[in-house]
């Protein structure tokens, strides 16, 4: 079916820069990111909206990119893990995740950090319970979540001290 349908050109801001993809209409944002734009930080954990591994920000709101048709992001702004920091220019959340051993296998990490960024953007000093609630849509099978929660608490402290953001 997919091949027989017309393709669409979708233009959007991706990590602060304009991008365009030519896709079949039901292509998900996740597939466009991973397979057309080759940004691989965003993971395909379930394709059912159940695990959070594909979490990204759409106009600064948290979305599961496996459930968002990419045509819906036309003219909008998408932020992935690659957009918030990279090797040599780590975001405080990335630094804290590294320091606290918050990534074991690393497959949930992108989604976890994006969910944490969404939280800290709105609530710079969250309680532990608020952090836990913000992560409730993101599954991790390795860590037992504790180092992830501690990393977010630490990142919040670092960011509130005016460390680079």
């Amino acid at each position, binding site marked *: 079916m997919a091949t027989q349908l017309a393709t669409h050109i979708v233009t959007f801001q991706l990590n602060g820069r304009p991008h365009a993809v030519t896709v079949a209409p039901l292509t998900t944002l996740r597939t466009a990111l991973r397979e057309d734009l080759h940004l691989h930080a965003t993971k395909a954990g*379930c394709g*059912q909206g*159940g*695990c959070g591994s594909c979490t990204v920000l759409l106009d600064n709101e948290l979305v599961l990119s496996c459930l968002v048709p990419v045509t819906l992001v036309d003219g909008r702004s998408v932020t992935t893990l690659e957009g918030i920091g990279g090797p040599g220019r780590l975001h405080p959340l990335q630094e804290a995740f590294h320091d606290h*051993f918050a990534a*074991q*296998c*690393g*497959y949930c990490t992108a989604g976890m950090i994006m969910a944490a960024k969404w939280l800290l953007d709105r609530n710079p000093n969250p309680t532990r319970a608020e*952090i*836990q*609630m913000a*992560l*409730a*849509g*993101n*599954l*991790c*099978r*390795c*860590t*037992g*979540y*504790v*180092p*992830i*929660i501690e990393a977010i608490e630490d990142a919040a402290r670092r960011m509130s001290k005016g460390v680079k953001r």
Partner: protein
Amino acid sequence: MSVMRGRGIASANYPTGMNLGGDPTQALVFCQPTGTFSVKLASTDLGQGLKTVIGQIAAEALGVPLESVVVDTGDTDSAPHDMGTFASRATHRAGNAVIMAATEAKKVLLEVAAEEMEAAPEDLEVRDGQVSVKGTPQRTMSVFDIALAAHFKQGRTISGRGIYLKPKSAIDPETGACDPDSTEAHVTTVADVEVDTETGEVTVLRLASAYEVGRQVNPQMVQGQITGGAVMGMAHTLMESVFPYYPALDHHPGNFGEYVIPTAVDLPELHHVVLEYPSSNGPYGVKGVGEMTANSPIPAIVNAIHDAVGVFVTELPVTPEKVLRALRAKEQL
């Protein structure tokens, strides 16, 4: 109808290495011209941190800084045989193989250094990437310069081969006599729970464990296994089943809405201490800790439920339905 609290304990052993042995792992170590040591092995890092601990073990055995060790895993074209990452064997087997390979490489390193420094190899020691004459610390030479000399002056290869194999043993079919482990790690876990006798819901308030895992190569990573395993064990006890009405096939789950694993909001308080009694055959006394951490929480929680409400629910997972059925059966006695 009320919420009842209870405490349960469970102890456990866990074998390191494949049951019956027969599971080798090899490693190769070689020195590059400027003193970087490359460790080649085909072992797999599942997230537990094998690449990191192998680097630590190699640096320790060679006497060089961690930064000058490069661990290359995961390519059968470039690395020798490894049985695989399972059976709590990877750090034990690969670590031993790496120590053996590093020891052989270090022997050559010292022989090259001895010739350059005009000293006997047995009088030399390596520390922090410097070779020095024991007792005469001013007579030193860097591993960097020794590696250059080996490559371009003496024409020697600073390298080593390592393997760890516990030979395969047989089971006596009549008595079951066998050799099931290389060493055993141990744990005792204490679980505190609340049981709602109206809904049957069990809440794990706290899991506190004392582990003994031999020497820890990287304590934070051991903690990572303990914490992750505690939550997995809790989920096995209370939440998870591929066939919830086993042996019937009904309600076979196909997504995360139907097969529930814990999220960050489902956590109990987690505490632990780690004791270290080095094993006789592990690298620097290591025992395997990867698998055991999900085990003791299961019976500890079941025992805590019994302590709270007086019933042993002995079929997993302990769903609210099973708790209520057990309570009803007890009332009818």
